[in-house]
């Protein structure tokens, strides 16, 4: 690439993380370290029933026998799991806030800085926000309307108290506690998260949205989300995150489990914008997430849409197990890696039932010195008569120092299955760019336009207001990246 482009790329790439600040709220944080006592402490602090403590301990014991996975295309220094603090909650009034008015004003201020005017957003957009600050949920809105529809949408810790029978029935049925190293760790120490239950035949009256945020220094964040869509129900869930600037790496190992029964549909959308580290690769979030949906029922559908721009390291494969006959799994992803970010992300589509269908559309964008890897598995079991998969996997490179890698794994054990894979890699064309410049566009506008065009197939799967947010996020992440 010639110099003017390179300069533009570097400028874009040099754009600063805009959400880098720290809120000064007293945290109730346990000292670093992890053993059975810490697990017991967490469970006790949260007033959990015995079954859950036993479940955590079992997971912990299993975790101790496991080793960290090392197959991903990412590099980072070894994590000292004993140097991490496993519980942190913002200090609250004795009984906790009952409404927004009771919420710590500092906290609300934080949301403001993040551009999430909670009440406004909730009112205007009709979105119920279960805002997670660090590990404990402090504000939940629109509960009434939801409960009238019979929908349960609450912090995980509340579900533990109010719906223990549901938890006991569903928890860990999609991602078993010993599924993988980080899932096991999460199962042992998870702090909070969201619980959603949509009863039979109910179409959730609004989009459910949770903003996650990591705040306390050096505190691992272990969210746990469980969404159950009972027969014939429908829900769209939005997850968005952003984090303050930090020097130390922060481990984040969330688990998300989805279950869709007969004819149910779950649409799960994520915009992830955690602190990616600075231009030199210092700091940033390690994002090791296990997300999996089980299309347990006939004709059920689970759709993952993600826009990943943040984190120093992303290790994430939202997957679908297509158990029910005629069930459908979808994965739409935009992953942006800039500076020294490393992303190893993709999906797994496991076809178990007959005539199951899956679609994978992955758009990877690399800039700076970043490496972006797509890793996807399409597995068709002998039982999956007539299964079909279509995978499209495109990479866009911005500048000479970055890389894109694609690892599609296909295992077909039923001869009636059709599996299609298309992949492209393109460099953000100097020629495309010049074409736009020649029409009078600024380099920045041209890059945004080209990148947004590249990501269009994914953006159109996002709920409206999220799509706009995602486009803005992309513009910020790649500001000046070419031109």
């Amino acid at each position: 690439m010639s110099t003017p482009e390179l300069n533009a790329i570097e400028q874009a790439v040099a754009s600063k993380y805009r959400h880098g600040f720290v809120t000064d709220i007293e945290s109730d944080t346990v000292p670093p370290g992890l053993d059975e006592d810490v697990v017991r402490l967490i469970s006790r602090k949260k007033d959990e029933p015995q079954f859950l403590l036993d479940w955590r301990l079992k997971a912990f014991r299993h975790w101790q026998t496991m080793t960290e996975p090392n197959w991903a295309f990412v590099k980072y220094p070894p994590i000292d799991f004993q140097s991490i603090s496993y519980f942190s909650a913002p200090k609250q009034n004795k009984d906790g806030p009952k409404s927004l008015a009771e919420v710590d004003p500092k906290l609300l201020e934080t949301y403001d800085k993040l551009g999430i005017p909670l009440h406004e957003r909730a009112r205007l957009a009709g979105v119920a926000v279960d805002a997670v600050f660090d590990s404990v949920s402090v504000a939940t809105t629109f509960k009434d309307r939801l409960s009238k529809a019979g929908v349960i949408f609450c912090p995980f810790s509340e579900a533990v108290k109010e719906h223990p029978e549901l938890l006991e029935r569903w928890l860990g049925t999609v991602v078993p506690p010993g599924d993988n190293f980080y899932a096991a760790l999460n199962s042992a120490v998870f702090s909070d998260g969201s619980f959603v239950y949509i009863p039979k035949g109910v179409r959730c009256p609004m989009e459910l949205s949770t903003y996650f945020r990591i705040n306390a220094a050096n505190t691992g964040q272990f969210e746990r989300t469980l969404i159950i869509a009972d027969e014939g129900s429908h829900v769209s869930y939005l997850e968005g995150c952003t984090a303050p600037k930090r020097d130390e790496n922060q481990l984040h190992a969330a688990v998300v489990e989805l279950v869709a029964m007969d004819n149910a549909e779950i649409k799960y959308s994520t915009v992830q914008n955690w602190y990616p580290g600075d231009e030199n690769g210092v700091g940033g979030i390690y994002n090791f997430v296990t997300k999996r949906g089980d299309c347990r029922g006939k004709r059920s559908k689970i759709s993952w849409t993600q826009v990943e721009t943040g984190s120093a390291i992303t290790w994430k494969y939202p997957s679908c197990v297509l158990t029910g006959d005629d069930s459908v799994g979808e994965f739409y992803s935009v992953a942006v890696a800039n500076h020294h970010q490393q992303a190893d992300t993709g999906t797994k589509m496991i076809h178990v039932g007959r005539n199951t269908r899956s679609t994978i559309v992955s758009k990877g964008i690399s800039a700076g010195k970043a490496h972006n890897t797509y890793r996807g598995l399409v597995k068709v079991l002998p039982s999956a008569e007539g299964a079909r998969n279509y995978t499209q996997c495109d990479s866009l490179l911005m500048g000479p120092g970055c890389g894109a890698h694609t690892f599609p794994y296909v295992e077909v054990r039923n001869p009636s299955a059709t599996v299609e894979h298309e992949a492209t890699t393109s460099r953000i064309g100097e020629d495309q760019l010049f074409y736009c410049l020649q029409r009078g566009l600024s380099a920045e506008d041209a890059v945004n336009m080209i990148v947004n065009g590249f990501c269009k197939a994914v953006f159109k799967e996002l709920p409206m207001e999220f799509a706009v947010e995602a486009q803005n996020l992309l513009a910020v992440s790649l500001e000046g990246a070419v031109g």
Partner: protein
Amino acid sequence: MTNTPPTPLLEARDLHVEVNGKPILKGLSLTVNAGEVHAIMGPNGSGKSTLSHVVAGKPGYTVTGGSLLYRGQDLQALAPEERARAGIFLAFQYPLEIPGVNNVYLLKAALNAKRKHLGQPEVDAFEFLQLVKAKMQRMQMDEAFLSRGVNEGFSGGEKKRNEVLQMQILEPTLALLDETDSGLDIDALKVVSAGVNDLRSPDRAIVMVTHYQRLLDYIVPDFVHVLADGRILLSGGKELALELEARGYDWVRAQDAA
């Protein structure tokens, strides 16, 4: 009283240009005044596209000698987007595809960039749509092209039409058309030529690169130049094109060498 001639729109004097260290233009001189239409003809690889690229400011071209002025201003001081906003338009020999970006979106962004440069407000969405639809009708393009990705999957001829559509909307002062006639069927050639002729005016100039005298039946040039071996070897009126068609380029070279 002496008449000072007006400043030319484009003036190349003894222009030397290299690509990847390879000299392509080797002392090219050309003057284009407002109101004029110039045709540039010449053998493959002689440097015609290079000339249009260097005027438009494509990266990778190094001016190693001579001068290149637009309205008396050194073009090298201007970034490509600044040249565009100042009224230079290049209809590409090979228009690029930009997947996923709506044709109409690019058009609007381009028009607004120009308007901003001129201190005008952004174009009203409704007016813009009216304008585009009128121009599309003029170019006999189906409105479906508006919502398609820029040149995405367009046929060769459709791409060329789309270039001229963009030109019609941006109304450039200096239009460079690089083989806009190549790949057009007979009817399309007429439509595209009419689109170009619409822009002829006393304060604009058009420079078109072509291999075929047929185009010049529709867009009648004031001057015809032969570009060979990186220089303008011969200039003449529109009849020169006929002679070239009959005799080829070798005699021009021979004459020049003599």
